[in-house]
């Protein structure tokens, strides 16, 4: 099978009330990603855009940024969900043999609307929506279910927030670099028990883009150092309704990880993966997903983080970018995680560079409480 490489990556700075339009952000990241790849828009033969109509406040939001994405006169298609799923679609288009170079771009401006109002509309209007569920209170139900199933404490969630905001101090693109303590997290405003303000990712604006190329083109256009191979990918979805799943169970992620590891030939993820960017939309999620990804046993995520294994200088640095807790441009989040992994594999991550990265893992979620997961293995 032909391989697919990521040959270009770019992100905007993540901010509140970003003064750029959706199109301006996409122009910025696609231009920078092309420059990073050392190619022009002429070499690109298709675009996968990632956006959400409801967040953008318009229908067919993908068409509104098609010029900005460089899709004029080309094939463009869209994913409404996380950027990791857009990248999967982009890779599949190349593997189909129909395309040789794909731009995958995602944009999000959370600060232009009402986050709770919008995430409420993700719920079934016939049942849960009228109860007032949204991304925060549903996550709170998951967090407590996870706590009671495994005997995890709020302080252990807080530890994730401390680590990731601290990591963001090394990332000039992050929105909330902060040196905080577990006490600060515990004392922050209660939003929905057991989640406090500093357990929750912030509403953020930003965009990211990747340039994917078929092996034949990647080798023609770029140097060995620039190419980061898409070695493995897996995705899997659980039930839509919260009550139809066990919210403390990570079976969908386990399936996704199993597929990605099998494709990449990974048998011992903790040994073979050097850095991970995992969806920490809420502090507790990092612990759950560490378990689902097989870095530790079920219920042991808190101990893994407490022992410092996930620290910047730990056995498996997790979210050295500062993660989603430090900037959460929803649909962009997973693509940003992949862009960070590209920098890590190339050794271009600046101050946040982890030593000796050969293989990196990027993870994104879609749907409430991690209904669906996409896992990427990227490497040299």
């Amino acid at each position, binding site marked *: 099978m032909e391989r697919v490489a990521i040959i270009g990556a770019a992100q905007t700075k993540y901010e509140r009330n970003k003064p750029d339009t959706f199109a301006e952000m996409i122009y910025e990241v696609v231009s920078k990603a092309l420059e990073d790849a050392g190619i022009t828009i002429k070499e690109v033969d298709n675009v996968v855009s990632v956006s959400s109509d409801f967040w953008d406040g318009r229908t067919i939001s993908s068409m509104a940024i098609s010029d900005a994405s460089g899709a004029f006169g080309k094939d463009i298609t869209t994913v409404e969900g996380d950027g990791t799923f857009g990248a999967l679609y982009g890779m599949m288009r190349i593997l189909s043999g129909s395309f040789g170079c794909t731009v995958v771009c995602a944009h999000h401006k959370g600060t232009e609307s009402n986050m709770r109002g919008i995430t409420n509309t993700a719920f079934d209007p016939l049942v849960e929506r009228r*109860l007032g569920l949204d991304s925060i209170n549903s996550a*709170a139900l998951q967090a407590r279910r996870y706590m009671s199933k495994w005997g995890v404490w709020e302080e252990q969630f807080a530890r994730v927030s401390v680590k990731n905001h601290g990591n963001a101090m090394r990332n000039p693109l992050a929105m909330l670099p902060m040196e905080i303590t577990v006490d600060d997290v515990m004392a922050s*405003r209660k939003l929905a028990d057991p989640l406090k303000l500093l357990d929750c990712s912030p509403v953020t604006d930003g965009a990211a883009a990747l340039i994917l190329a078929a092996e034949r083109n990647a080798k023609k256009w770029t140097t060995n150092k620039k190419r980061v191979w898409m070695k493995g990918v897996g995705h899997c979805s659980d039930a839509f309704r919260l009550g139809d799943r066990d*919210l403390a169970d990570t079976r969908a992620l386990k399936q996704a990880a199993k597929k990605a590891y099998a494709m990449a030939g990974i048998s011992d993820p903790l040994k073979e993966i050097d850095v991970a960017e995992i969806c920490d939309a809420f502090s507790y999620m990092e612990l759950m997903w560490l378990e689902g990804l097989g870095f530790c046993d079920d219920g042991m995520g808190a101990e893994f983080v407490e022992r410092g294994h996930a620290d910047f200088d730990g056995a498996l640095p997790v979210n050295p970018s500062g993660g989603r807790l430090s900037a959460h441009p929803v649909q962009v989040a997973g693509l940003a995680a992949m862009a960070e992994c590209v920098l890590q594999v190339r050794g271009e991550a600046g101050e946040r560079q982890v030593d000796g990265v050969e293989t990196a893992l990027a993870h994104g979620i879609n749907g409430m409480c991690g209904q669906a997961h996409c896992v990427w293995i990227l490497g040299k």
Partner: protein
Amino acid sequence: MGIETAGAAAVPRRSQRRFKQVREVIDALRHGTRRNTRRLAAKREVKQLSDWKDQVEVMVHHGKISVPYSWTVGSTLSKWYVLMRDKGEIWANRCPSCGKVYVPPKIKCNDCYKDMNDWVKLPGTGILESYTVVHYSEPVIQPQEPPIIYGLVKMDGADTAMVHLMGEVEPEQLMVGMRVEAVMSEEREANIFDIRYFRPSAGGEA
């Protein structure tokens, strides 16, 4: 249906900066020789690619989209709601293949993808699997003033859980595993609020 766009309100986001540089270019255009004007303008042009943005007063236009919808409830959920409205009962349906009981009812079992035509009546009691006390206010979506308590209730006789409001309970009394029961509304309209809320029931902790 109405899509209203409120009048454009000016909200400046960037203060004027590097005014001096613009001044220089203008002065050069006015007074410089043709040649050095061009050179200066060309030099500025390169810088302007990034610089002009710092001088823009970026505007924000406010708007609101209000579009009504009428969603059909479909046969499965309509049956559920009508039983609730007319009899004050909570029903579930069962997978003919694996026996899993779903509430709210579903068309097909997630695991088996088989039609679920067996309906079973639930006693309306259950166990609190998780809960949260919401402290923030969001009138656009919330059915009542905060604090609002939500419970994830695993009802007796069902294999799935249901999210609903909790009532007649103080936040500090909440406990995972506690016995709860549904309280039906007096006035029922065949929607999710026909269950008023769940409250702690006799029997205490399971």
